């Protein structure tokens, strides 16, 4: 029975067989961190403080995140190890619902924390720990060496949480922004490295397609 359950979970794990899920996640985190850094350090009259620049930047990121993984899948993954189309409920609704709930909870928590003038570097590192747990559930369960990545993410998040508030605050206008930026940089870099290793291993262990009927 356990073997059947494990078979049922294999298609989900297949999405990141080439590391594309992590590469996309890493790109997104670094993109957000760069935007936060630009908004914190650009002069007040800079375009980075205006809505049009934000909309264009976010739009470009969405386009790259949508079409980039798709291009890699179509030109590299599907010809090598096969095509999978996920069920609409798995591909659309579940991530949207989880994302909406997580986003709403974070926003409410942030709003309450700012209003009460809490030190928000610790919650930023808690968000990092939650991400690390989510990474462990989604990626590390199927590939053993990725538990090392989970440890790096978890310890890095804890380290950010214990950094002095003024040191973190020097990165941005407010300490919570600095902590969030550091968390994004940590996650973006680690996910890009981990995704890159997965992609390299995938290319090494799979063969380029032979031109014949499948």
């Amino acid at each position, binding site marked *: *029975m356990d073997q*059947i359950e494990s*078979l*049922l*979970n*294999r*298609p*989900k794990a*297949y999405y990141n067989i080439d590391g594309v899920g992590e590469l996309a996640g890493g790109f997104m985190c670094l993109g957000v961190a760069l935007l936060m850094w630009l908004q914190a350090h650009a002069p007040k009259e800079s375009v980075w403080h205006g809505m049009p620049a934000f909309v264009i930047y976010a739009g470009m990121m969405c386009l790259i995140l949508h079409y980039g993984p798709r291009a890699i899948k179509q030109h590299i993954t*599907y*010809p090598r*190890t*096969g*095509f*999978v*189309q*996920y*069920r*609409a409920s798995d591909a659309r609704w579940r991530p949207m619902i989880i994302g909406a709930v997580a986003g709403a909870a974070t926003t409410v928590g942030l709003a309450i924390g700012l209003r009460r003038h809490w030190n928000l570097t610790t919650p930023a590192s808690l968000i990092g720990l939650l991400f690390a747990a989510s990474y462990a559930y989604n990626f590390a369960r199927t590939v053993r060496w990725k538990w090392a990545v989970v440890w790096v993410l978890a310890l890095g998040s804890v380290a950010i949480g214990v950094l002095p508030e003024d040191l973190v605050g020097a990165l941005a206008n407010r300490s919570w922004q600095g902590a969030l930026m550091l968390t994004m940089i940590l996650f973006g870099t680690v996910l890009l490295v981990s995704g890159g290793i997965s992609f390299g291993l995938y290319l090494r262990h799979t063969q380029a*397609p032979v*031109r014949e*009927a*499948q």
Partner: protein
Amino acid sequence: MNRQIQTIAELDRVIHEPGRLMVVALLFAVDRSDFLYLQHETGMNKGTLSSHLSRLEEAGYVEVSKTYRGKVPQTLLRLTAAGRKAFEQYRRKLKGAL
């Protein structure tokens, strides 16, 4: 006859064969996939996988469609509604029997 043994005897034999069980379980978790994916995940050779798919198609559990990805022919496979129902029943019965 013992109820558990009777349940085992009632298991769907089309699905119960290990090779076909792998195929059906993999297809159950997705909307559709191609032949290459099933071959990669099950580790079966083309002939064996084809024969299992033919048996599942005969039973009305799998829908096979041929298309092209660029210039390369592609065989797409999808579990039918009957296939999904049969697999759900199979899981329920197996769980009850164990």
